[in-house]
């Protein structure tokens, strides 16, 4: 199993498309953070304008933590596309390359091949989110220094600097979880088509539909909205609440987990039973 995973990782990380996500992150994160540094704290000033009329603000709230949080907030809806580039290609890519049958005639069960591909997907997702986290936080702290963190969501929350670093660590670990859901959905679509473009487009289509249904304030969807995986994709944001709503995080993790497990099992069943003709 270890060898299978190793070969899958080699196949995955030797493909140029694997690095598209890394390349985009390596361009967009520094670009945005440098631009924010030069533009200054206009957004922060606007958001705290009324408060600053009544209070002196002492200390640096426009710091690396604040900017990293904004980057996370801005990118969480785009990262799934980058994840689906790779996850959508794992099975369908074999068909496109004409290596499906070559792979499956070897004396290894389809289940083990599937598990190796799933393992490669998990490792890719984890490495990509880690890269994004290290890049955005590391660069933001280098550019804008550290300090207490301001969270502007349902009001204003100031988090003490001593409690911010571990919150980011937990937030990025939690951010892997919804990306695995996306990856498993892409893997599911990848299991029943022969072209890698289809799974990427289909995954993004599903994401967009669910996102629209989640954010539209329509009462018709109120009763079922909690079941949409997109409602729970921001579970990492909850780490920046005080106190941290661990029950909510657990609930979101379970809903996402159900999507992930159902997608993976479905992909596995399709892959195992599928008549490979290419």
């Amino acid at each position, binding site marked *: 199993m270890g060898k299978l995973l190793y070969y899958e990782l080699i196949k995955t990380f030797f493909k140029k498309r694997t690095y598209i996500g890394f390349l985009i992150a390596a361009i967009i994160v520094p670009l945005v953070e440098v631009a924010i540094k030069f533009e200054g704290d206009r957004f922060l000033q606007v958001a705290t304008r009324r408060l600053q009329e*009544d*209070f002196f603000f002492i200390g640096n709230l426009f710091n690396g933590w604040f900017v990293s949080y904004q980057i996370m907030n801005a990118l969480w809806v785009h990262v799934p596309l980058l994840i689906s580039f790779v996850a959508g290609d794992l099975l369908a890519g074999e068909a496109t390359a004409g290596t499906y049958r070559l792979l499956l005639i070897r004396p290894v069960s389809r289940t083990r091949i599937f598990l190796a591909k799933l393992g490669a997907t998990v490792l890719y997702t984890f490495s990509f989110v880690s890269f994004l986290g290290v890049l955005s936080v590391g660069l933001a702290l280098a550019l804008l220094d550290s*300090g207490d963190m301001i969270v502007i969501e349902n009001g204003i929350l100031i988090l003490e600097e001593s409690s911010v670093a571990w919150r980011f660590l937990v937030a990025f670990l939690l951010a892997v979880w919804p990306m695995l859901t996306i990856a498993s959905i892409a893997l599911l679509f990848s299991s029943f088509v022969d072209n890698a473009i289809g799974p990427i487009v289909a995954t993004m289509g599903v994401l967009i539909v669910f996102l629209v249904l989640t954010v539209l304030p329509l009462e018709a969807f109120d009763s079922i909205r909690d079941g949409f995986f997109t409602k729970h994709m921001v579970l990492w944001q909850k780490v920046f609440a005080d106190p941290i709503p661990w029950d909510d995080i657990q609930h979101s993790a379970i809903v996402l987990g159900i999507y992930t497990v159902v997608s993976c099992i479905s992909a596995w069943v399709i892959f195992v039973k599928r008549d490979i003709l290419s």
Partner: protein
Amino acid sequence: MYSLTVILGLLLLFQQPSGEEILRKVEEQLAPVNDYTADLVAEVDMQRLRVPRMKATLYFKKPDKVHFEASGFAMLPREGFALNPTWLRQNFDATFAGSDTIDARILYKLQLAAKDKSTRIRQLFLWVDTERWTVAKFETIPYEGRNLTVTFRYAQQGSVFLPDTMHAVFGFVGTEPDSLSGIYQAKPQLREMMGQVRGGTMTVVYSNYRINTGLSDTLFEKKEEKK
């Protein structure tokens, strides 16, 4: 007790000094102080705002130089901090408005009207302790949708009384911000961007006063540069 207060009030009324005289008395009480440094601990309890307990250092130098330093983030009320009677006397017309008692202390009540009508706070009431000549309380007439009431407790620092605790109550006039619905519920960040007024309280405790240490002007100039 009530009749005693009325009698004392009447007595004070007959020998009442003018508003300006009262403010001068407050200035005189603070005359021995040229500068001071104090440690501050502030706690805030406001709508849609969560801030941990804050620590800062306050630097004050006559006539009106104020500078704050904090290792982390701190927010401190703009109004009432290092309340400067000279500034009040120069910028407001003070009128005697009666007498009052707070915590069994007899106080003069002044009505202050800003000389410059473009000033943010145009009118306020000020309560001055008739014995210590300290500002015990002030209350603003509603401005920009809010009103502010600040009460002070004092402790003797050498020959002068300086604030020991400041308690500010921020109220708002008009629509209750949290009752706003619709777009604010969908986009809660918008409410912050729209700058809705908050109600709440803030308590600041002063300690460890260092008086007349000869604070350098450069300490306050640095603050100007940062702005």
